[in-house]
């Protein structure tokens, strides 16, 4: 049925082409002048299209620059060394005093633990999915079924709104009826890890899958086991892509608010140290939210926002440098 439809379609297409040929042959004398008219019109369309593309590009960049520029310019008014090194005072009444120091510290601790939890877990899961599970896919039985479920779950998780992760974290880690970790660095870090896990898994999966098959064959042919092959050959070769995924997750944690709003608390005090897992805190992004919604210190919100943007820019630069260096090193340059 479908075969027939396809063949009849191709017949029509052939007819059209044939028809055009006939037309062309019949109008050969007009062709030269016709083409010239046509050419002028095509140039006109070309110029119009180019102008439109150019305009769209300019508008898009302008909007971006406006957002970033506005925040940075506004923020620059309060940005100074003191702002970076003084803790915020918190509260509505004292909104004109204090800086953002503790929120920087809290953000660093939060990023550290999130990546410590999600990084290894995500990379190992990706190795499993690509190196071990892939050959079972399409088979029947419990493990192949589980593998498809995991793959599906990772895809879905990557698209789930972050507040859903927040709700989950609140219910499972924060709330007294379950683990009862209350608002704390550990609740926030573990929930944050759930949030970035799909990001790390997908980036690592892609990087691992891009490693040439010939490397694996060479390693196995030398009598290395599958695990040795994955660990010593595939993983180093996939490192640039994996690191890119991890640094992207750092950016995600730094800029996330919804998840940490319901898991990290919001106190202006930072945890005492990176090991002070049970204390609550306030990340930079959360600080922007609190300043904007609960105080009159709009300028300080802008200042914190500017620091946040600069952090993201630095993170992206770091991604570029690291992956370029590693790639060059792997290629032997």
């Amino acid at each position, binding site marked *: 049925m479908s075969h027939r439809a396809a063949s009849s379609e191709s017949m029509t297409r052939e007819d059209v082409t044939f028809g055009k040929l006939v037309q062309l042959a019949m109008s050969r004398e007009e062709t030269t002048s016709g083409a010239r008219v046509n050419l002028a019109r095509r140039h006109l369309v070309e110029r119009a299209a180019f102008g439109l593309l150019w305009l769209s590009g300019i508008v898009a960049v302008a909007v971006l620059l406006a957002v970033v520029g506005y925040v940075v310019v506004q923020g620059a008014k309060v940005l100074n060394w003191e702002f970076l090194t003084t803790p915020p005072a918190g509260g509505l009444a004292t909104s004109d005093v204090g800086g953002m120091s503790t929120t920087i510290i809290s953000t660093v601790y939060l990023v550290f633990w999130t990546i410590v939890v999600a990084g290894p877990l995500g990379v190992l899961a990706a190795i499993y999915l690509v190196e071990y599970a892939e050959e079972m896919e399409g088979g029947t039985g419990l493990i192949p079924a589980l593998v498809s479920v995991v793959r599906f779950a990772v895809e879905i998780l990557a698209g789930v709104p972050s507040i859903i992760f927040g709700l989950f974290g609140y219910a499972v880690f924060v709330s007294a009826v379950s683990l009862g970790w209350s608002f704390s660095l550990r609740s926030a870090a573990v929930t944050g890890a759930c949030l970035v896990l799909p990001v790390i898994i997908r980036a690592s999966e892609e990087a691992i899958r891009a490693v040439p098959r010939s490397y694996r*064959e060479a390693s196995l*042919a*030398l009598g290395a086991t599958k695990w040795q092959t994955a660990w010593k050959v595939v993983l*180093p070769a996939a490192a640039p892509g994996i690191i890119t995924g991890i640094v992207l997750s750092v950016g995600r944690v730094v800029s996330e608010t919804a998840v940490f709003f319901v898991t990290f608390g919001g106190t202006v005090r930072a945890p005492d140290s990176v090991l002070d897992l049970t204390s609550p805190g306030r990340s930079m992004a959360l600080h922007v939210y609190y300043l904007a919604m609960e105080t009159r210190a709009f300028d300080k919100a802008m200042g914190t926002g500017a620091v946040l943007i600069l952090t993201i820019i630095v993170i992206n630069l770091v991604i570029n440098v690291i992956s370029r260096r590693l790639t060059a090193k792997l290629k032997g340059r």
Partner: protein
Amino acid sequence: MRFGDVKLETKSYSMYYGDFQALRDVDIQIPRNAITAIIGPSGCGKSTFLRTFNRMNDLISGTSVEGEVTIDDHNVFEMDPVELRFCVGMVFQRPNPFPKSIFDNVAYGPRAHGVRDRAQLAEIVERSLRGAVLWDEVKDDLNKSGLALSGGQQQRLCIARALAVEPDVILMDEPASALDPVATLKIEELIQQLKVDYTIIIVTHNMQQAARASDYTAFFMMDEDRAGYLVEYGPTNRIFTNPQQETTERYITGRFG
């Protein structure tokens, strides 16, 4: 047919990719410390046959085998593939050094098998690189990436890497097909030197190469159902000067394939 001391042997060996039969009833005895060339038209199962001996076909899902394949009278299908590959090394069609230093490339195999001692590794690396006639060219930059070498050097690095685990057998899957004529000649010379210590099987598309560089030649062909089978096997000299089968004669005189 029996030539000298048998290292590898197949008895009515058949191999399948799913339902497709790739090899049919191959009986062959590969002699120790000799170079056996496998020739035949594209798609006749040469590479598949070669990959039987280190069970690289296992990596493809849905393959199955019939018959017997032995190394020193041990059935390879009953051996642990990791252990088997320790005795049967392989060099691939395209040079495939790891994106690691020259030293780490060669040391990879021994390290995988548990050699940790730095001095011992250094000695293995030097011996293997000398064995592959690459030492003089790279001894001063062992820390350079293996990928920075030329194609011919990369292939000799891959041979050194295979030698480092001290196998008995080296399988070569068209090892010179991606190289220029000068590099090809170097590899062929190297193979001649290696046969003193190793049993070598080399798959090649190039009949001059088989004629020049091998002691025995096996000619494979495909059946009407595209399954590969062994047409003729014997001393290279005889196969090329006095083939017993008409198919062999037509193939080596270039009338098809």
